[in-house]
């Protein structure tokens, strides 16, 4: 499954980048593809393209401060989490994101 994510935090120096690394680690462990955009003090890094978003089943928003350009995700399932949760247990977050996709698919079938 393809997942995209955005991370951000108040100062944009540490949690943003740690959470991004954590999600990449979690995706690798669970065998999923992920692309993580960081909105830190270095600006947008690894910015998600329109294609990235349209191909993704779910977007994980680990934004401790408002996510920029959030309208990009209006047609995508969104999982809202904190950067800290990502850092602490990235595998659980990936699994939660997949649950979200499964649930939305089930709801559509009903």
């Amino acid at each position: 499954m393809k997942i995209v994510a955005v991370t951000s935090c108040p100062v944009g120096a540490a949690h943003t980048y740690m959470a991004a690394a954590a999600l990449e680690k979690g995706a690798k462990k669970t065998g999923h593809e992920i692309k993580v955009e960081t909105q830190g003090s270095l600006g947008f890094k690894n910015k998600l393209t329109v294609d990235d978003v349209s191909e993704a089943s779910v977007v994980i928003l680990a934004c401790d401060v408002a996510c920029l350009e959030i309208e990009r995700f209006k047609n995508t399932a969104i999982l809202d989490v904190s950067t800290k949760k990502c850092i602490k247990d990235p595998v659980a977050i990936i699994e939660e994101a997949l649950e979200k996709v499964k649930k939305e698919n089930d709801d559509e079938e009903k």
Partner: protein
Amino acid sequence: MNEVEIMNTGLINFSPDGRNKNAVIREMTEMLKSDGRISDTSAFYANVLEREGISSTDTGIGVAIPHGKGSFVERSSVVICRFDKGLVWDREPVKAVFLLAVDDDEDGLAHLELIAKVSTMLMDDDFLELLFTASSEKILFNEIKKRLEEEE
């Protein structure tokens, strides 16, 4: 050389005096000041506490990463303390603290990239293990230096 742009062996201390969060931030702030990396200890200290007030910078992996950002930072830097008997950071027990000082002008961006890299090292289990068990500050510093150079 025991130095990279954002830190040196003198900015790592495995036997700090502080026994509580604020005392530790104060002590680490003094380390930055005596190395000439910040200009105003009171302003930096207040800024770090302000950031903690927004949300605690504990991470759930045994490391807290408080940080201060502003014109009172002369050179973006990382200072590290390890607490072998543990330290309580708000509600979380931590074994190490990485205090980040971030210069907020344009020239600081290259350094910011280095700081982000050091923070990201904490997501690597091998690095965490070394952080918690290294027998000397020098060993930890050499590992950080090696990893910073590898990624360049």
